[in-house]
């Protein structure tokens, strides 16, 4: 694989039921590329958490996945409310999710920590009222 492979997804922020479809698709694509199962699992979980966050906290967004010889990069962008305190948001258990979101099975405050747990690098930039940008990398070597 000499050329980088790129996948792009629009994440619909109005439909909770379909949230996660981009991650399901990426999982299939990576399988076709013959990537190791544990790497695929780490990428899928991290992307799924990010995708769900965009739907429940930011009204949707965009996801781009780039596969090179060295790594898989997952880039998520939304134009939601932004994250006030990133350090606090990274703590296990911190969540601003409403009771409605909790009854849907989310809001444990574990998503961002999971994204960190399963990737080799995570960079979060966020501006209140503008949106959030998250770039995660999983090394292949």
């Amino acid at each position, binding site marked *: 694989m000499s050329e980088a492979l790129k996948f792009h997804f629009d994440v619909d922020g109005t439909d*909770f*039921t*379909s*949230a*996660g479809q981009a*991650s*399901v698709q990426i*999982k299939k694509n990576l399988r076709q590329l013959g990537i190791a*199962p544990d790497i695929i*699992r780490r990428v*899928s*979980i991290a992307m*799924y*958490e990010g995708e*769900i966050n965009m739907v429940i906290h930011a009204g949707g967004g965009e996801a781009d996945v780039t596969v090179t010889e060295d790594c898989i990069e997952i880039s998520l962008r939304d134009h939601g409310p932004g994250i006030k305190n990133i350090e606090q948001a990274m703590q*296990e258990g911190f969540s601003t999710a409403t009771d409605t979101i*909790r009854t*849907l*099975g*989310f*809001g*444990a*405050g*574990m*998503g961002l*920590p*999971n994204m*960190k*747990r*399963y990737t080799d690098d995570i960079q979060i930039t966020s501006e209140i009222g503008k949106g959030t940008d998250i770039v995660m990398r999983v090394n292949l070597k």
Partner: protein
Amino acid sequence: MKISAIKELLDAELICCEENLNENVFSACGSDMMSDVLAYVKDQAVLLTGLVNSQVVRTAEMMDMRCIVFVRSKMPTAEMIELAKEANIVIMATKKRMYEACGILYSNGLVGNKVRDV
């Protein structure tokens, strides 16, 4: 533990992917919060949950889980069953409550697993 043994132990009703009943699972996770589940990664696991929506199946799929057990007689929707069939995940439903269902599997040798360090 074989998935068929889980079905027997929990007196559960099989809902889809019968052809995988002979597969083995080595660990289990019981929760209604999906990100809690996503923190626990182990090969060939079973998920016990009282939550019913499509994200339960997607969570199991992301984790490469083999089986989902719905507790307290919860029943998956037709859409969830379709998703599970596509992902080849056994679904079953038991009348038992979460605490009891987990206890039965645990005491029969299916132990949980550790969270990966952040």
